[in-house]
């Protein structure tokens, strides 16, 4: 209409705002992606408990997360361990904790309780006896602080 018949109309949309938005979206998804990559095994279906309190603020550094599947096997680094290996792993972990504390000059004697919190992420179908076995095994290794994970709502 406005241009001449022979003249070439060059449409150059401004891409910069679009690119800005796309980068912002990418940043958002990248940040969310990192959180979900924590030591949470998706194979574990947690039970629901309305009064389970979400962890406020930054979770304590000093914690040991135990994922237990529906068969009562410990999921460790993506691998499911049978009971013997699981117990061995717990022993190793407690030794590592003690060693770490020794390095930090906060040595804990053998009978003394360890400051590490053991976080149980157990499947909702695990029988109590399996959970109890892990709890007692942890207690024998000197862990006294426990946390049982559950979904905060039906969602």
């Amino acid at each position, binding site marked *: 209409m406005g241009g001449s018949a022979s003249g070439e109309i060059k449409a150059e949309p401004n*891409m*910069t705002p*679009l*690119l800005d938005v*796309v*980068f912002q*979206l*990418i940043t958002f*998804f*990248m940040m*969310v*992606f990192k*959180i*979900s990559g924590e030591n*949470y095994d*998706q194979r574990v279906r*947690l*039970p*629901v*408990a*309305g*009064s*389970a*309190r*979400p*962890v406020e603020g930054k979770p304590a550094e000093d914690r040991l997360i135990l994922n237990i599947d529906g068969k009562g096997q410990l999921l460790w680094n993506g691998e499911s361990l049978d009971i013997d290996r699981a117990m061995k792993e717990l022993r190793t972990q407690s030794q590592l904790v003690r060693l770490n504390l020794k390095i930090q000059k906060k040595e804990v004697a053998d009978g003394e*309780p360890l400051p590490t*919190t053991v*976080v149980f*992420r*157990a*499947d*909702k*179908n*695990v*029988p*109590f*006896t399996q*959970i*109890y076995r892990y*709890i*007692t095994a942890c*207690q*024998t290794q000197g862990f*006294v*602080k*426990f*946390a*049982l*994970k*559950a*979904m*905060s*709502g039906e*969602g």
Partner: protein
Amino acid sequence: MKKMKHEEVEVQITPMLDMAFQLLTFFILTFRPMPTEGQFSMNLLPSSPSIDMAKTDKTTDATDSSETPAFLRTLTVQLKSNLDGSLAEMSIGENDFQSLEQLKTRLKEIVADKTLPFDQAVIQSDPGLRYEDLMRVIDVFAGPEVGITKLSFNEMSGV
């Protein structure tokens, strides 16, 4: 002297946008929002937990309840399971409860009664009880209406 030549440099933005969209697609497709997880924190000491648990809380409350021996302040709840692992029956002393509502009502009465010193509980459970049902009981204890958060566990020997 060299003559300044005015040259327009055009930055190709389209490939960058393509790549950005690809990245965006990847993140959208792999995005699985984490559901909110809550937790119940507890101190469980190896032997006779309820007694030792009281020791750890010595500094927190200096009410008359701390003078009562821990075993008198500990409420024992027994959980029995069906063969499929679901919760069959709960009992406190002589009282049996078939539903969680009944248990909650009784616990509310116990908590409301100031003459009773209970402020912690031991949950004795059948070995076969599913964790889901155990969690429902813990939920009743730790919920705002009852508020007994000092819990420990015990396994009932085979019946």
